[in-house]
């Protein structure tokens, strides 16, 4: 049962990153590349009718985490208190920027909300990468100092940073050079992803330029991925142990690289959706590879006193997990239907949706 919910949760989080990821990416493109009003409109049209439903994947994943793994939910949400609340604030700015810019026809007003939307998207991408970094690196569970826990074994609290910015000391912070590195990977990957979405959903003048940009960004992404992989052993001395134990896990890194290399060919694609497919594969592969490498851990402990949080020691009770399956299956079928209808109605290019122009 725990395993079932673990897989469900990971799928939901991955879907969230793939879907809302293109919104963040579009926001970053909006911030750095969209100069003309027409380009900006194209971008908001491409994500307008979707972003809210995409964000629901985060809420729903949060709900499933709460119900299936309450101890992990409690421990990680209180431990990562500050960044989580900041993510909430950024999500608010993102939404407000997107929804309100069209409500008043005034240059300054639109400039302010454009920047709010763009900067919030950029920071969100960075924060989600940093979050992933924290999960892989682990935390000081039980807040051990001098060999003994100062709190219950599964609670912790991290400040935003510590002066050393080192991922290997006893005094960890949310931001250190390792998590920042993953943050950068996320920013670049999601920018590419967002660009692909815009190419896929619009006929804007930007498309041609974006294809070139994707190529360059993809080179950068490749470099960042190689750096991350080559320093991974600092965080996890034995990074391959799971891939040796469960050889089929290799499928995840393979998918990642298919995605990454597919993206280099973006300029020659005949169909505009293909680039989006490859960047989705990259995100899917990257996330699954990372969580697979620490499985069954969900949040590793960096001390030797308290055990890591794993799929097995944070789950809710058996009965609740089993009844949950019934309603979850029904709900999933419904969600699939909604998504089908939604993407069906808004299929093809969306340049004329007129988003936000009431």
């Amino acid at each position, binding site marked *: 049962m725990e395993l079932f919910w673990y897989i469900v949760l990971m799928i939901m989080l991955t879907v969230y990153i793939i879907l809302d990821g293109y919104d963040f990416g579009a926001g970053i493109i909006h911030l750095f590349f969209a100069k003309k009003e027409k380009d900006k409109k194209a971008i908001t049209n491409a994500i*307008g*009718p979707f972003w*809210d*439903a995409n*964000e*629901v994947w985060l*809420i*729903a994943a*949060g*709900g*499933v985490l*709460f*119900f*299936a793994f*309450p*101890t992990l*939910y*409690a*421990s990680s*949400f*209180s*431990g990562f*208190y*500050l960044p*989580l*609340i900041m993510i*909430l*604030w950024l*999500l*608010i700015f993102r*939404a*407000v920027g997107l*929804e*309100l810019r069209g*409500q*008043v026809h005034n240059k300054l007003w639109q400039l302010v909300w454009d920047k709010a939307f763009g900067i919030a998207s950029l920071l969100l991408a960075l924060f989600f990468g940093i979050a992933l970094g924290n999960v892989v690196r682990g935390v000081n569970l039980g807040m051990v100092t001098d060999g003994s826990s100062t*709190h219950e074994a599964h*609670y*912790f609290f991290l400040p935003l940073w510590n002066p050393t910015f080192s991922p290997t000391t006893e005094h960890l912070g949310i931001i250190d050079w390792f998590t920042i590195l993953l943050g950068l990977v996320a920013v670049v990957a999601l920018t590419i992803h967002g660009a692909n979405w815009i190419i896929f959903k619009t006929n804007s003048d930007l498309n041609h330029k974006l294809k070139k940009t994707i190529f360059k960004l993809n080179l950068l992404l490749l470099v960042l991925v190689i750096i991350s992989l080559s320093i991974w052993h600092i965080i996890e001395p034995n990074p391959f142990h799971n891939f040796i134990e469960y050889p089929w896990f290799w499928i995840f890194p393979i998918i990642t690289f298919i995605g990454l290399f597919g993206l280099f060919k973006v300029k020659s694609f005949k169909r505009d959706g293909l680039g989006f497919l490859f960047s989705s594969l990259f995100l899917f592969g990257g996330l699954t590879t990372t969580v697979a490498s620490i499985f069954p851990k969900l949040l590793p402990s960096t001390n030797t006193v308290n055990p890591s949080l794993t799929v097995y020691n944070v789950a*809710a*009770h058996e*009965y*609740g997990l089993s*009844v*949950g399956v019934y*309603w979850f299956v029904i*709900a*999933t079928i*419904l*969600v699939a239907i*909604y*998504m089908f*209808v*939604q993407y069906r*109605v*808004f299929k093809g290019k969306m340049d004329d*949706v*007129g*988003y936000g122009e*009431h």
Partner: protein
Amino acid sequence: MEDMIFYDRMQFAFTITFHYLFPQLTMGLSLMIVYFKWKFLRTKIDKYNDAAKFWMKIFALNFAMGVVTGIPMEFQFGTNWAKFSELTGGIIGQTLAMEGMFSFFLESSFLGLFLFGEKLLGQKLHFLTGFLVFLGSWASGYLIIATHSWMQFPVGYEILENGKFVLTNFSALFSNPWLMPAYLHNQFASIITSSFVVAAIGAFYLLNNKHNDFGKLFVKTGVIFGLISSVLVAFPTGDWTAKNVAKHQPVTFAAMEGIFETEEGGSEIVLIGQPDMENKKLDNKIAVPNVLSFLTYQNWNAEIKGLNEFDESVHPTNVPGLYYSYHIMVGLGTIFIGLMGIAALQLYRKKLYKTKWVLWSLLFMLPFPYIANTTGWYTAELGRQPWLVYNLLKTSEGISPTVSSGNTLFTLLGFIGLYLLLALLFLMLAGKIINKGPETSNQ
């Protein structure tokens, strides 16, 4: 430790109070928009479709506010109430996860279609998407109230040795006797909010002598919906919820009603008075003898235990706050019935659109349903104190053990600043939409 609890509570209270300002309009207004759309399909009179389109603009803005302030709510169980989440997550996590899966997906997928898909979909399907948005928001209310009901009246659980609550009976969460009365009460209360908003905007147009056709339509629709929902909120649903409290939380009931002493031969109903906690009595009281006993037990002489009969350790932590909240809600409810009754009478006599003082009253009533809804929730929440899960888990035992008070104060201040900005933007933009008024389609 005290500070930690205090800031956590302030943050939760502030953010949920602000959040709930929006869903109450969402739920009620979606019903009224569906009504306008339905009228249009039946009569093919453009006015109804234009009315629906106008309210959809307000709805979209309001909905966006509900969404952005709702997400922090979901996260805060984990960030600020970690111990509570850890211990009860196996139970309330069920209903909260169901809310995400069943209602938020429904609402958010079809809202986009509803707002931007009229041309693509055609009128019938467009009506359907509106209906689905309505359904989603009401399902969300249902699952939230189910969660809330479990905290007021826990059912279907077992407590393990390590203090964790585990679910033993899923269907008990939904057959909880607290749930249906509270849900219906709350939903009618949210229809009240939307009716008063619609009527107030209508009155605004009539008094301004602008958009008169729409003004009449809005006032009429608002008054009819408003009268029905105001009556239903008080009776039977308010009555049911009050009886539940009397039965399952007698201390809370005594405090809510301001009854300090048990009276032989039946209790009076307090209309006005100020609780004096130092001397355990009610000052300057105006009360009607025996009515409370009758309302609660249909027996003029039934005994109702006074607050002084319970040990102080089980008293609600903020008796005056609880008492005032409850009396404000009930008092406003009475005024709503009165005003809507008069307005409906004038409507029936075909004089409403000319009776200036009623139109002015409708306009000025606009904020009061919000106050009634908020004080209603304060009644429920303050009444539950000092418990998080009634009789089982104290509020002080539910907070996050590792989050320091300085950090909570920081985020509380951040929320206050951010929400003030949101409130300003909302008022400004809603004002703009209202001032511009509905547009008539010229077909």
